[in-house]
């Protein structure tokens, strides 16, 4: 039994796969208005891919957790790309490097997030107003949908995508201090931008089409 298990581990072949980042358009049309982004950057580090968590009694759609905040059981790490980058969320595709992993199915991805910079113009029913935000995220972005398999014979090319329109759909663009620009000092820009950019559904890691 032990030998059989070791044989299974030995048979799991390493996989190396290129990863690139794809941002979005600087011009976004949302339900409540339009956004033009002059600048949208996020510092990120250490991309990890995880297998689905093992659930012993019940099927799990999101994952297995311990009944206490901060004790989620993600699946085991299936691959990783260590390093740090500043992602231009509205720039051209960027190569991030070559991730290393092991054969098998991937379910989710996670990475650390640092400083978020957003600058541009919001146009809503009441007119246009500029915004400028720099905020420390300092929390991991977890549970990013990553449904693909790592196959040593056909290593995939991976694409990390930011859905900026989804992320900024949470933002409230209220200018409250009368200085004519929406900043972290206004209303809820900071909290809503943080919520949007760290939402797991604002990101996907996918296998690129051949």
């Amino acid at each position, binding site marked *: 039994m032990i030998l059989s298990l070791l044989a299974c581990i030995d048979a799991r072949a390493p996989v190396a796969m290129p990863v690139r980042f794809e941002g979005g358009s600087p011009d976004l049309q949302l339900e409540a208005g339009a956004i033009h982004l002059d600048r949208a950057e996020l510092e990120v580090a250490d991309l990890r891919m995880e297998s689905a968590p093992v659930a*012993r009694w019940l099927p799990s759609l*999101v994952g297995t957790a*311990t*009944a206490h905040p*901060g004790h989620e059981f993600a699946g085991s790490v299936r691959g990783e790309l260590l390093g740090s980058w500043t992602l231009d969320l509205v720039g051209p595709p960027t190569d991030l490097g070559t991730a290393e992993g092991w054969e098998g199915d991937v379910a*989710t991805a996670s990475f650390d997030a640092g400083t978020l910079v957003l600058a541009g113009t919001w146009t809503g029913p009441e007119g246009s107003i500029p915004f400028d935000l720099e905020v420390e995220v300092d929390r991991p972005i977890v*549970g990013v949908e990553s449904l693909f398999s790592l196959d040593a014979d056909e290593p995939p090319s991976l694409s990390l995508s930011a859905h900026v329109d989804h992320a900024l759909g949470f933002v409230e663009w209220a200018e409250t201090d009368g200085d004519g620009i929406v900043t972290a000092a206004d209303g809820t820009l900071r*909290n809503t931008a943080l*919520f*949007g950019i760290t939402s797991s559904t604002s990101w996907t890691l996918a296998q690129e089409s051949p």
Partner: protein
Amino acid sequence: MTRSAPVLLLAAGCAPTGTWEVQTWGEDLIEQGIPAEVFEDGCAATFTVFEVSITEASLVDGDGSDAAAMASPARIDLTSPGPHALASLEAPATHYDTARFRIAPDGDAPSVRAAGTLTCGADTVAFDWSFDTDTTYRCEPEDLTIPGGGSHTTELTVHGDHLFYDGLSNPDALVRGTALLEADTNADGEVTQDELAAIPIAPLGYQVGPYADVVDLEAFVAHLTQSVGHVDGEGHCGVDL
């Protein structure tokens, strides 16, 4: 062969058993209330009702099979002094890794109902919330050994303060009340679940981690009801969400 069969039957018939005592308790935080020092923002809460529907309590053997299971669901108001006995079950005397509990709707009864008052500064609101979340807790107590001829007690401990956490997955989540109190948008002195559902999470600075579908305060508190179960005090249990 002809001699060993009776011996085996005899051995099986005499396998030692013991008693698995199962109880639940809401501790002081539910019985007495949550004092201001527990809240990051100085609020305080008391419960007049904290009912849980415990629909399963099982002792699980190494094969994943139930060695003993509670016969019928129990609905317990944890504001009354506990611990509350749930079952006294005969089980093979041995060591076990896992106890399984399920807090789920039972007929018309919700899985969790919490009613009481929340006070922040000079303002107090009442609440009476019912949730239909269905949560199975897989708990691994430190030492779960049923002694032959003796008994061992396992407690499903319910943490009422979890309903007030400001995060669903971050380990630095804090107990806060202000956002819940301010959800009383019609200022009638009671925060309803409809009022909670009208409050978006994003502006609050609360964190949902991987649970991106949780976007309003009612869904947030409902999710937190799936974190109230612990074992033997502070022991953590796994859940599938």
